[in-house]
């Protein structure tokens, strides 16, 4: 039997076990621990607060419903980020964003990457405080298209292999590779321009 005072000190695994038995307070403690990470992942994908709050809450509802399916193969936080990422991908598919994005994708897919600049020539964030680097990366990621950002997030933050990204996003491995390269090139270019702005 769990005691309320145990919740803050209990491990995630213990809280999950209690929550599986219907203990909503244990579940609330899990939410409290991980809500910022889940929200941040939704925010980086969706780029707006309303969607990020909505989808992060939806992810918690889904996790409550599917908690019995969580067998601990990964950490609870990893399992949760997968749920929120899937919801974001579904939402992005539904939204079918701007025409500008499709033009950019067409250029990317027909243009070939060999004509593009090298990814990073110099460290564009040299001399910056860590928080400032983080802020600039976030800002630069906000300028990527949804399609490019999704692939980048899945690879860099979720640590997924090309094959897994292709499956999750519903594209070929070749498209994953070109989108990833294009996203990195664009990100590097944005970071370089931030560096130039700073030195002027």
């Amino acid at each position, binding site marked *: 039997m769990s005691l309320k005072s145990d919740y803050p000190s209990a491990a995630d695994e213990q809280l999950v076990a209690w929550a599986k038995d219907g203990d909503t307070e244990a579940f609330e403690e899990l939410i409290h621990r991980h809500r910022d990470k889940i*929200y941040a992942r939704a925010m980086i994908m969706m780029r707006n607060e309303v969607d990020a709050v909505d989808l992060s*809450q939806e992810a*918690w509802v889904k996790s409550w*419903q599917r908690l019995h399916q969580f067998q601990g193969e990964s950490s609870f936080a990893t399992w949760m980020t997968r749920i929120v990422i899937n919801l974001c991908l579904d939402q992005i598919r539904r939204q079918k964003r701007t025409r500008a994005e499709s033009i950019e994708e067409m250029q990317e897919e027909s243009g070939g990457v060999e004509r593009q600049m090298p990814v990073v020539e110099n460290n564009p964030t040299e001399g910056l405080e860590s928080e400032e680097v983080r802020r600039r*990366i976030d800002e630069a990621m906000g300028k990527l298209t949804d399609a490019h950002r999704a692939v980048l997030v899945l690879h860099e933050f979720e640590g997924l292999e090309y094959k897994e990204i292709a499956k999750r996003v519903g594209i070929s491995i070749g498209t994953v590779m070109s989108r990833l390269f294009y996203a990195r090139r664009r990100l*590097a270019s944005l970071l370089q321009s931030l560096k130039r702005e700073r030195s002027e």
Partner: protein
Amino acid sequence: MKTTEFTLDLQAYVDGELDAKHRAEVERVLANDADARSLVQGLRQLSDLVRTHEPIAQVPESREFYWSQIQKRIAAVEAREARSNREASSAVQWLRWLAPALGVAAVAVMVALPRWDASVAEFAAGGVSEDTVSMTFRSDADGVTIHWIN
């Protein structure tokens, strides 16, 4: 000059996506190609930079309010599921009652159909047997007329 395929191979090399044979091929090229080495270094640098500076954000709502919103959603989903389960269960109950009745009706139709077909065929052919006998009884007092056909 780098081709698209080779550029993407360099990226796959950095991402650890190449098998041993392709990795060895890329390393052979890297040994003699300064541009390729520079690209690989740039890709690694960017990847490290992004991974170590993952953007962070905080839920713009209090713990209590955020949880109360989730609770409401869970309650709504559970109520919807309960309703749909009730409806499904009610449909099953109806089927339990209806199934035997439908079965009997189906058997009755199957039995009656050939006879009905035969009667219709006979009628359609304009045929009334020559052996058919009919009688009529009428009671004026009761205001009733009975036709008997055999």
